[in-house]
């Protein structure tokens, strides 16, 4: 089962480098996956992963344990992703105005069956994947973050709220908006 995150943090604070390495190896894949979702570039994502853990090490003394280690490291990584994108000048130009929540907005019908082995369907799936990537990339970093934390990392609303340091209500409204954006963006494919 292994040591708890908190025990590893305590040992790392006392100078046990192997304990900190344990934390890195425990969460590097999750953090990298999140960073890839935010940045879309694996090399940039690996850079952010390294920097996030380096920053976590420098600030171990400030980690109080009131939030879990992984929400803490996610927050560091997400802030680094946003900083990275600001530096690169790649923030998407998307309005933050919410979509109208009316009944007559066409509802997308995403195919939910998966087909294996058919090259034509695989090509179609590849196209859908590409369009999904583009659609996720067009979200603002704040909306992209909630989608990734919820859909990919499986965090609860409360955990997302702690990670992003925003109220739970904000998490819910951003999630709702982001989902509607993605559905609207992908509707022509389906």
């Amino acid at each position, binding site marked *: 089962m292994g040591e708890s995150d908190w025990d590893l943090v305590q040992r790392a604070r006392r100078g046990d480098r192997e304990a900190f390495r344990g934390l890195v190896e425990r969460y*590097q894949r999750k953090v990298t996956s999140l960073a890839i979702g935010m940045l879309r570039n694996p090399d940039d994502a690996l850079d952010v992963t390294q920097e996030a853990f380096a920053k976590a090490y420098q600030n171990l003394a400030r980690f109080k344990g009131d939030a879990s280690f992984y929400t803490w490291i996610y927050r560091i990584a997400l802030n680094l992703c946003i900083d990275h994108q600001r530096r690169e000048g790649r923030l998407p130009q998307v309005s933050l105005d919410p979509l109208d929540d009316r009944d007559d907005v066409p509802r997308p019908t*995403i195919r939910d069956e998966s087909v294996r082995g058919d090259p034509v369907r695989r090509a179609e799936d590849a196209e859908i994947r590409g369009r999904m*990537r583009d659609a996720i990339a067009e979200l603002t970093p704040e909306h992209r973050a909630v989608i990734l934390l919820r*859909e990919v990392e499986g965090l609860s609303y409360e955990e997302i709220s702690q990670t992003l340091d925003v109220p739970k209500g904000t998490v819910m409204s951003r999630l709702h908006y982001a989902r509607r954006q993605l559905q609207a963006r992908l509707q022509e494919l389906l």
Partner: protein
Amino acid sequence: MHCLDARSKLDAFVDTELPPRELVEVARHVAECVACDASVKQLMALHDAVCDVTEADASGVDLRGVWGGVEAAVDAHDASRQGRQGRQGRMLRRLPGRSAPLWAAGMAMAAGVMLFMGAGGDPPVAPPMIAAGPRMPVIERYVGVSTSIKKDDQTGAMLINLGSGRLSRR
């Protein structure tokens, strides 16, 4: 439950974030309402599609070098925090008081011998007093093509660009 009511809760329903009583009410409504049922299916399909594309992008990423990069930053942080300046050379022991004149004469003789021996040759190299931590290289003398220099304060590394113009376009 009214459809408008249920629709406002479908995200939380799919995310299992509703309190138990509301969860049951919404579930009952979804079972009876074609539109809301379709919405739930679409939310779940969206979840699958987002996971699919993220996993595809993350699969095959080589994480082997991550700890190495983290460790380099950890080294730099520890070194600058501890303020390591290296080891001192060996110290001579404190001399007993009675023998001080004898030892003092011996030291003077030794210094004279060393000065004599050292006059014509290379100076002896003391055990290194090592500077560590993120300290920038220092150029003491430079002869060559015109160059530009870039510094990374975070890790104390320096780039000397021997070509003309910027190395890369960002």
